[in-house]
């Protein structure tokens, strides 16, 4: 019975309606990547164990399955409850190699490894690259960043809090490898922002 009690959290907190919850979360994620920088509001449809937040738990339940390898940052991979929850609700295999990951989940954005260390795809198949889901403190209140590129009419300003210092440098490198490169979903409690590899990020508003 003790074993059951310690593991019970892994079995709870998934989608109440997997079909419709997954569909609505997917549409939000799709809109976020089709309209980079636009904040997409999100209901906490899942209750994953801390420090994983509900928005990220919902994205995981929507997109992860036995076909996708997941890389967790040290904060999350050390946490048995998180790994257990993700495994139970998505059956996705975990990997310790950033280069193998279809998805990477980062609880601590400030400790982000270099973007080049993740799967970049090949010049022939640039889609075979990692999508990073980065938990940040907040989508607003940070330094103003100006986005331009496909999906953006003129320009879009975002001010996420909790990105690593070297993020802009890393992102410029990511863009220079186009069509190869990673795509990023920034997630906070209040919603998500999509940063597909096409988007250009500069300081300023």
């Amino acid at each position, binding site marked *: 019975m003790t074993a059951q009690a310690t593991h019970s959290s892994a079995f709870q907190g998934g989608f109440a309606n997997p079909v*419709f919850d997954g569909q609505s979360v997917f549409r939000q994620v799709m809109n976020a990547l*089709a309209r980079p920088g636009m904040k997409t509001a999100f209901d906490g449809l899942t209750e994953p164990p801390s420090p994983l937040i509900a928005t990220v738990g919902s994205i995981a339940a929507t*997109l992860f*399955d036995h076909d996708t390898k997941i890389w967790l940052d040290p904060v999350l991979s050390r946490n048995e409850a998180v790994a257990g929850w993700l495994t139970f609700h998505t059956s996705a295999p975990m990997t310790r190699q950033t280069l193998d990951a279809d998805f990477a989940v980062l609880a601590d954005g400030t400790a982000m490894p270099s973007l080049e260390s993740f799967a970049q795809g090949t010049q022939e198949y640039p889609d075979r690259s990692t999508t990073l889901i980065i938990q940040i403190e907040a989508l607003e209140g940070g330094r103003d960043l100006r986005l331009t590129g496909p*999906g953006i009419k003129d320009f879009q300003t975002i001010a996420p809090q909790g990105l690593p210092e070297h993020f802009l440098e890393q992102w410029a490198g990511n863009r220079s490898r*186009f069509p190869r490169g990673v795509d990023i979903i920034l997630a906070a409690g209040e919603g998500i922002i999509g940063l*597909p590899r*096409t988007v250009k990020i500069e300081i300023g508003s």
Partner: protein
Amino acid sequence: MNTHAQLATYNFAYLDEQTKRMIRRAILKAIAIPGYQVPFASREMPMPYGWGTGGVQVTASVLGPDDTLKVIDQGADDTTNAVSIRAFFQKVANVAVTTSTAEATIIQTRHRIPEETLKEGQILVYQVPIPEPLRFLEPRETETRKMHALEEYGLMHVKLYEDIAKNGHIATTYAYPVKVEGRYVMDPSPTPKFDNPKMHRSEALQLFGAGREKRIYAVPPYTDVVSLDFEDHPFEIQKFDEPCALCGARNVYLDEVILNDKGGRMFVCSDTDHCEKRRAEGHVGHLAGEAPETAQ
């Protein structure tokens, strides 16, 4: 046998959830790399290849209970392909349907873009027979992959040049190749080239599904879509001498309708919703006849 009980055993929108996740992941990568063809594990659908299995799988993966679906076939809401796909989603997803372009949140299309300008938040899903614009020039997938990888599109320009050399003008009138965001050359599906300018910086999200060829690609909103051409032979769309015979519309794409075996013909809007809306507003073409009410 109770047919309703049988239907209830289908998952929402026909596809199982694992298939939807796989297609959804492909759509996200397609959006991130505009114009690039993402391979996906296309499923067998309850309709033959060539009837829009790619478009149907994309629609089934994005569709939700709050959506309003419109389906067109060559611009028309009332032809076989459009009617059966619309009925399919009514049955398997119980989703609201419409023929009005403005009311639809998702529009699945076979080979036309509606005349009415699409708005932010709308999704246009194309049924694509052959997604590879270079396929008729180079049959080997390994080679066309490499050509896209190296951005080596000289062959396509040679093809357009040969058109000019033979005919004096670029004779490609449909599936006219475009370049997306200055990088990938893309087949816009066999839409008439008349529709190409509508893709450029469209407010709507454009998704393309090729079921038999197992490819998904996308053009996000506000993305540059430029038809290939030459400085001295700029891209031109089709022009029609006469307006629509039913609603009098000009600057729209017209279908030729044969009226008799003595050479009688009329040209009418290919977009039936656009034509009906205009006639309801009181626009009358020269062959429109009288409204049924007055005739009675």
